[in-house]
């Protein structure tokens, strides 16, 4: 939100500096069409359709008209709709207001707001229609790609179209009424559509997925542990949120680029250890912080089944080690920026698998919270508690406890060696650590189970 305000300010004031030879208002008007296209696409993927929430009201003695209106109006209160407001209000006040007069500024903003809500309802309508006609999405993609191509090859310039479209308001402020009218029309269309389709099964956006993904049969060769890892992988791949954190971990592989490409860090290369921790350890940090919460939905199963709890933790440990190893191997590509980076990553990798993984696993056991796997990933903070904030401290801090003092006195290489050795010792003692984890779990199991049930 603060970013949005800051960005809005920047648009209003800094545009002159970046493009001194162009009129900033024209520039903004030219970009608006693109902005709305992007916003529409974003909404399509992220915005929830408010439709499913009508189910609990259907059997109550409330007039359909009332709750449909309520539903549609409520849907307008959303972060997406505020975004444009934050982005463009400064421009409306400081640029357009000053150049064209306050009334034009207000009407220009009205136009933006009108467009935002038009897109809002267009998005909802579109998402629902998609259910009846799945090919619509394909058509949409083709259309967008086609328009993009037209623009790219400069057959039609959308920025000038956009500029004329939105610039018209500046010349004739009454045009601001058009988007507002569109808004009302689309609201009405949504209403009519909903009124005709108040049967949840018809408007539900759930698609019947006949596909069952991933079998991981090869893991069965590793016995019980492999079996348990396979189960966890299925958990990750079949739910949005853990899948997202897996993708995030993949992206964090590139985190090193932030450091390695900066000249200023070449002198201060101690920072590379931090990069190494992130690059090789992103998966266990992302996924491991919710260690047990992922399985809160079937926690009772774990407790009563004929499987030793120790194996359960062993499986998790080895899964994290495997993920770190994969990340480390992938990070070998960073040798391009200098061989010493490999040394840093190796030390960080060993420290991660020897010390940090057990640490994260232990801290994650501290009063874990329930996670409903079937909920989406965006803005979902379920399962986040004090423990998830605490985790950063040992993971990022501990390597420096050993590396820092030596590096300060100029023995950085010995510092790395120390970090690597400690990690290695930790890894060699892994059976002891897993025993310890199992014991602390066994002691707290009733509390954890009760916590998962109560929420």
């Amino acid at each position, binding site marked *: 939100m603060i970013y949005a305000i800051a960005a809005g300010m920047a648009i209003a004031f800094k545009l002159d500096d970046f493009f001194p030879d162009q009129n900033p208002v024209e520039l903004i008007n030219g970009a608006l069409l693109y902005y709305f296209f992007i916003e529409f696409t974003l909404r399509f993927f992220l915005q929830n359709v408010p439709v499913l929430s009508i189910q609990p009201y259907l059997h109550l003695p409330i007039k359909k008209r009332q709750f449909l209106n309520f539903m549609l109006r409520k849907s307008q209160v959303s972060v997406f709709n505020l975004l444009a407001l934050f982005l463009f209000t400064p421009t409306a006040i400081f640029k357009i207001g000053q150049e064209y007069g306050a009334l034009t500024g207000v009407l220009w903003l009205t136009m933006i707001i009108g467009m935002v809500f038009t897109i809002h309802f267009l998005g909802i309508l579109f998402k629902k229609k998609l259910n009846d006609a799945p090919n619509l999405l394909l058509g949409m993609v083709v259309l967008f790609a086609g328009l993009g191509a037209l623009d790219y090859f400069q057959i039609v310039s959308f920025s000038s179209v956009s500029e004329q479209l939105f610039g018209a308001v500046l010349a004739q402020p009454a045009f601001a009424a058009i988007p507002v009218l569109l808004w009302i029309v689309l609201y009405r269309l949504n209403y009519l559509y909903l009124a005709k389709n108040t049967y949840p099964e018809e408007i539900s956006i759930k698609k019947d997925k006949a596909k069952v993904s991933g079998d991981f049969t090869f893991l069965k060769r590793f016995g*019980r542990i492999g*079996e348990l890892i396979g189960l966890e992988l*299925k958990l990750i791949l*079949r739910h949005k949120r853990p899948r997202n954190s897996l993708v995030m971990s993949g992206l964090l592989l590139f985190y090193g680029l932030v450091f390695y490409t900066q000249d200023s860090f070449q002198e201060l290369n101690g920072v590379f250890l931090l990069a190494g921790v992130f690059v090789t350890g992103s998966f266990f940090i992302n996924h491991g912080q919710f260690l047990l919460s992922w399985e809160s939905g079937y926690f009772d199963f774990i407790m009563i089944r004929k499987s030793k709890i120790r194996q359960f933790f062993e499986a998790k440990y080895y899964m994290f080690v495997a993920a770190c190893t994969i990340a480390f191997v992938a990070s070998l590509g960073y040798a391009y920026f200098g061989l010493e980076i490999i040394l840093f990553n190796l030390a960080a990798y060993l420290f991660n698998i020897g010390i940090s993984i057990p640490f994260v696993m232990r801290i994650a056991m501290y009063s874990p919270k329930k996670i409903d*796997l079937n909920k989406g990933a965006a803005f979902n903070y379920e399962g986040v508690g004090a423990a998830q904030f605490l985790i950063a401290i040992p993971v990022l801090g501990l390597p420096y406890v050993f590396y820092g003092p030596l590096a300060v006195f100029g023995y950085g290489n010995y510092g790395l060696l120390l970090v690597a050795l400690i990690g290695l010792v930790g890894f060699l003692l892994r059976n002891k650590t897993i025993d310890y984890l199992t014991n602390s779990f066994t002691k707290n199991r009733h509390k954890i189970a009760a916590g998962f049930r109560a929420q």
Partner: protein
Amino acid sequence: MIDVKDLSKSYKGVEVVNIPELSIAKGESFGLVGNNGAGKTTFYRMILDLIRPTKGAVLSKGIDVSTTEDWKFYTGSFLDESFLIDYLTPDEYFEFVGSLHSYSPGDMKEFLGQFEALFNGEITGKKKYIRDLSKGNQKKVGIAAALMGNPEVILLDEPFANLDPTTQIRLKDLLKDWKENHQLTMLISSHDLNHVTDVCERIVLLEKGEVKQDIKTSASTLKDLEEYFATY
């Protein structure tokens, strides 16, 4: 088989279960009845070491269940959906549970063969996750999985709820058959007095966490129970 000693559980000073003494013999079919909030599920959870008793203990084969994991190897159970891994298909779930009991594919086929009538062609071989099944079908999956690995004891909470009449009758036959042929000790809780008196030879009536009646099932049991709950 299962002995309860001085068992008590309180939440914030309110006692929800208080059973000073109860023994369930091997091969016995034990039915637990009582209104909502009588403590049936809490009692079962303590038998499965899912809840720590405030006082006392549950012994399985003479050993306190909270001190060992051995009971897990001969106890099957299905209390609610948290006993299922709902993002697996039923086939994957059976396979996973089967692997815990070292079932070969042949064992699995033979095992699932017994449930053909119960499943009614709606469970196995379908590419559908458990979370997308109806409540009744989820229950069928849970009950079948609870019987995996030839358990000596089985705990079921409301096994007849959500099932269609045909399946209820088939389940009753199945349970009776397992009791006959596998000397299975069964602990069943149910609101369905009709079914529970039919399947169980012993009925314990729980009210506000305390045992009010402990009777051997006879021809008049169903009538007595109905009378009790009607005047409750």
